[in-house]
């Protein structure tokens, strides 16, 4: 009996400080199970000839690392990708929807949809369902019309084209660093170094980011994927 008492605290011992009319039951003292969420660092930037996307690989449920090698950079269409942060379920679902819409749209269009279009579809859903979603998205890719592009869609569902964007819990540790080191028209090698360094810095400070650093380089004629193992990161412990 004692054992069971220990396992599940009794309602009387806990006073929940909630306002009148709160929908929680008074005996619902346990926190609801935490959702699988990508407490993340993602960073995407334009360079001369394309875009580079980078992300850590840690997916956590509260304190627990649910996946130490996850992919937070997902394909939306041939040359359009998204870096996801926030709820894994929400961002995956959004990506699937946009993927579906774009594949239909490509048929009626008779050519590749633009990155702009993909970003707008994400925005429409992120904005219309802002009360229900926990999704931070950075859409990037390459199209013939506008070349390499980065679109940031933060929590409220705004859509902004930017030269670089970073998001996730780790992003606050590196924004200043990026601001200081990013310049427009960087070469591919320079930009890749910046992405790797920024990610490594964020991963070393932010407890919810970690694992490997994955990156994706999208340019006119190819898409290259790569990763750096956790013990080979350029900075950090």
């Amino acid at each position, binding site marked *: 009996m004692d054992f069971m008492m220990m396992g599940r605290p009794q309602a009387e011992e806990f006073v929940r400080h909630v306002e009148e009319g709160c929908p929680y039951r008074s005996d619902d003292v346990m926190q609801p199970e935490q959702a699988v969420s990508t407490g993340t660092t993602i960073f995407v930037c334009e360079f001369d000839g394309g875009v580079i996307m980078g992300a850590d690989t840690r997916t956590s449920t509260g304190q627990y690392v649910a996946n130490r090698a996850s992919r937070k950079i997902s394909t939306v269409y041939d040359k359009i990708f998204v870096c996801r942060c926030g709820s894994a379920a929400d961002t995956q679902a959004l990506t699937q929807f946009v993927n579906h819409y774009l594949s239909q*749209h490509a048929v*009626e*269009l*008779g050519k590749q*949809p*633009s990155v*702009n*279009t993909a*970003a*707008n*579809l994400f925005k*429409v859903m992120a904005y219309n369902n802002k009360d229900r979603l926990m999704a931070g998205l950075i859409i990037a890719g390459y199209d013939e*019309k506008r070349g390499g592009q980065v679109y940031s869609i933060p929590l409220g569902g705004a859509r902004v084209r930017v030269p670089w964007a970073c998001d996730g819990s780790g992003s606050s540790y590196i924004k200043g660093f990026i601001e200081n080191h990013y310049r427009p028209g960087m070469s591919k090698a320079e930009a890749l170094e910046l992405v790797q360094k920024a990610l490594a810095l964020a991963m070393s400070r932010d407890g919810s980011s970690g694992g490997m650093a994955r990156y994706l380089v999208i340019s006119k004629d190819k898409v290259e994927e790569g990763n750096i193992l956790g013990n080979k990161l350029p900075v950090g412990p």
Partner: protein
Amino acid sequence: MAGTGAGYDLSVTTFSPDGRVFQVEYAGKAVENSGTTLAICCKDGVVFAAEKFLLSKMLVPGTAKRIFPVHRRAGMSIAGMVADARQIVSRARSESTQYMSSYCEEIPPELLAERLGLFMHAYTLYWSVRPFGCSVLLGCVDQDTKKPSLFTIDPNGMVHKYTATAEGKGKQAAKTEIEKVLANNPDLTCEQALVHVAKIIHKVHDEKDKDFELEISWICPASKHEHAQVPAEQRKAAETEAKRILEAEQEDD
């Protein structure tokens, strides 16, 4: 019943024994009775022209239009029942804005024409509706490449892409004239085309018909690649010049 058509022309839901849908063909007749309208894809844009019959001497000039803007870089000229065609114009406008709000790009001209084709075709399938008594000329200029394109959409829902075409009473004569103009000036610009289209509309006008007002609009560099009416002075100048040439030609004959 006398003849093959008899009894089969009351509804679009019944084919005649020789495989025709008469109501749709009759809708085509409504187009043939209308004043002539034409459009030309020039080197640098699209020009539309329409012969608008004046139903009354008291009609205010520049009203009861037959050429409409669809979006900033698309216009539509109509032949047939104007009231019916306004429905198409309104549909074209909503298709363009809807496309823009979901895809954040201007609707490709081909796609807009195709969607309007589907819309008009849907009205040839149900007994409860009648087909549109109009054909429309849809002209667009691409936002980035500035490439012009021109389509016609008929009451049966067919879509055709043209470099230049005409609809209405004088369509045959007008098409022949346009062909001649384009053969002589392969690099015709919109500004150069003004006199030609004014001349053609005046030439194909039937003296037995009511007086008419010439309506011209364009999408070209002069209008900053947006659909706009040709300024009144330019239109009048083109019209006077056209009349002068026509008179000179008649004297030669």
